[in-house]
């Protein structure tokens, strides 16, 4: 099997997995909400309501499609498409597991191990705002425009703190921007220099502050509660997607869940060792390579599912911020905190070495 075919299969798999996880995240979200509010949640479609996402998707497809008369038609279509494309593009640089071996050849489970992996993710995330802005503006609706403006200013504000918290991770890992080597560096070495278990040298144990900042910013970048001001229904009806109907609305909602999936993956890779798990080297020496790779993929997905659950948990626990509170948190708290964190980490790394 040539490399090109393998990568194509990998991309297709990732695409389908992203969509599948996004679909079942909507189901999980309802179930988690129901659990937290002491309800049952969807249980009509199929056993335990498992066919609910399919029913929802069918409904979205079959609904009448309305394009407002005074909207800019091309931009109105471009908005949700761009949002979806940017959401799907980020999964390309995430290492999904250890390399696997097919027919004597070793393939890495990463679409592209580019030299500037984490910057690529930040870049694509910063482009995601265009989908919201264009959609909100072209709807020709004051509420949608307000939602779009809120979304863009929120995303620009939180990107800075996010970038700063990534810098601290880069300072303590082996100085590469490639996500693969960031993950690999967390799989080797001893935790705090003396706990000798392979695959547990995770960045979160060295950078808890950066992790909290990154997590908060991830919430803001995904427009999730408590930072879902762009679509706060009590103030703006539906925010930027007020005028959208049918599958275009579906794309916006869907892309949000894909963003959540990808941010969970990025958080796992940056702070929780990616596909590494305690004892990975021991298993690597005793089991065939492909089985260990599959276990590592499973471990990464467990971490991802935990963070998706965490996103939902927070959504149904914490009330929405007010917009000025959101901006104040971003600029007065997270931004100085992350800069101080960079300075302290830089000083410590310079003084003690790695």
């Amino acid at each position, binding site marked *: 099997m040539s490399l090109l075919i393998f990568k194509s299969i990998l991309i297709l798999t990732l695409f389908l997995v992203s969509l599948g996880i996004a679909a079942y995240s909507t189901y999980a979200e309802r179930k988690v909400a129901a659990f937290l509010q002491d309800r049952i949640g969807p249980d009509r479609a199929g056993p335990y309501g498992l066919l609910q996402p399919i029913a929802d998707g069918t409904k979205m497809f079959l609904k009448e499609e309305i394009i407002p008369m005074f909207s*800019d038609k091309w*931009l109105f279509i*471009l908005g949700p498409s761009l949002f979806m494309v940017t959401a799907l593009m980020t999964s390309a640089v995430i290492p999904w597991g250890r390399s696997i071996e097919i027919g004597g050849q070793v393939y890495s489970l990463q679409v592209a191990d*580019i*030299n*500037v992996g984490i*910057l*690529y993710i*930040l*870049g694509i995330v*910063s*482009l995601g*705002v*265009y989908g919201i*802005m*264009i959609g909100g*503006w072209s709807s020709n609706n004051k509420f949608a*425009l307000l939602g*779009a*403006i809120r979304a*863009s*200013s929120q995303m*620009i504000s939180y*990107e800075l703190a996010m970038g700063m918290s990534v810098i601290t991770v880069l300072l303590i890992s082996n*100085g590469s*921007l490639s996500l693969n080597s960031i993950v690999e560096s967390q799989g080797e070495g001893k935790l705090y220099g003396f706990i000798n278990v392979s695959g547990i040298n995770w960045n979160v144990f060295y950078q808890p502050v950066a992790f909290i900042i990154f997590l908060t910013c991830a919430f803001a970048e995904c427009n999730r509660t408590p930072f879902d001001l762009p679509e706060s229904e009590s103030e703006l009806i539906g925010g930027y997607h007020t005028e959208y109907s049918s599958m275009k609305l579906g794309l916006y909602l869907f892309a949000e869940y894909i963003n959540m999936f990808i941010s969970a993956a990025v958080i796992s890779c940056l702070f929780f060792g990616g596909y590494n798990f305690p004892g990975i080297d021991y298993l690597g020496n005793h089991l065939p390579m492909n089985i260990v790779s599959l276990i590592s993929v499973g471990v990464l997905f467990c971490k991802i599912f935990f963070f998706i659950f965490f996103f939902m948990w927070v959504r149904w626990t914490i009330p929405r911020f007010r917009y000025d509170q959101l901006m104040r948190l971003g600029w007065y708290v997270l931004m100085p905190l992350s800069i101080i964190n960079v300075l302290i980490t830089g000083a410590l790394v310079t003084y003690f070495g790695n």
Partner: protein
Amino acid sequence: MSSQILFFILASLTIVSALFVVFSKSPIYSVMWMIFCFFTIAGHYVMLNAQFLAIVHVIVYAGAIMVLLLFTVMLLNLNKESEPHKSPLPKFAAIITGGLLMLVLLAAMHSSTLPEYSSPAFSDVGYVQKVGTKIFTEFLLPFEMTSVLFIAAMIGSVVLAKKDKN
């Protein structure tokens, strides 16, 4: 050979999108084409093995500056009806200056020989480590000077944006 074809596709896309920036009637479309243009330029950087420059170009220009520009254009609500009638004088001035610039460019192209395009040999000169080392050793002074310049601009904008107490 394939990189040459890629170069020509990218270059033509860049030029066409840059033309659309100028010729679009709606400013929103201008901004959109400009974002596309920045992407094609980032593509050129990638072809020159300058991945870091390419991605920073996308983050800074397409991701931040153009968002702010789009923001402003959206809030201004530039419709055709509200556009004031312009006198023809600036148009003539623009034609003359543009024509002069074109003359200069044509003269420059005429007097220089255009070399055949050859894809650059693989080098890691544009990678993050190399760029970082260069910036913090050889070009430290200019780099720090630019940061001072940026701080001055930031403080200036804060001062301008601050509400007048009166």
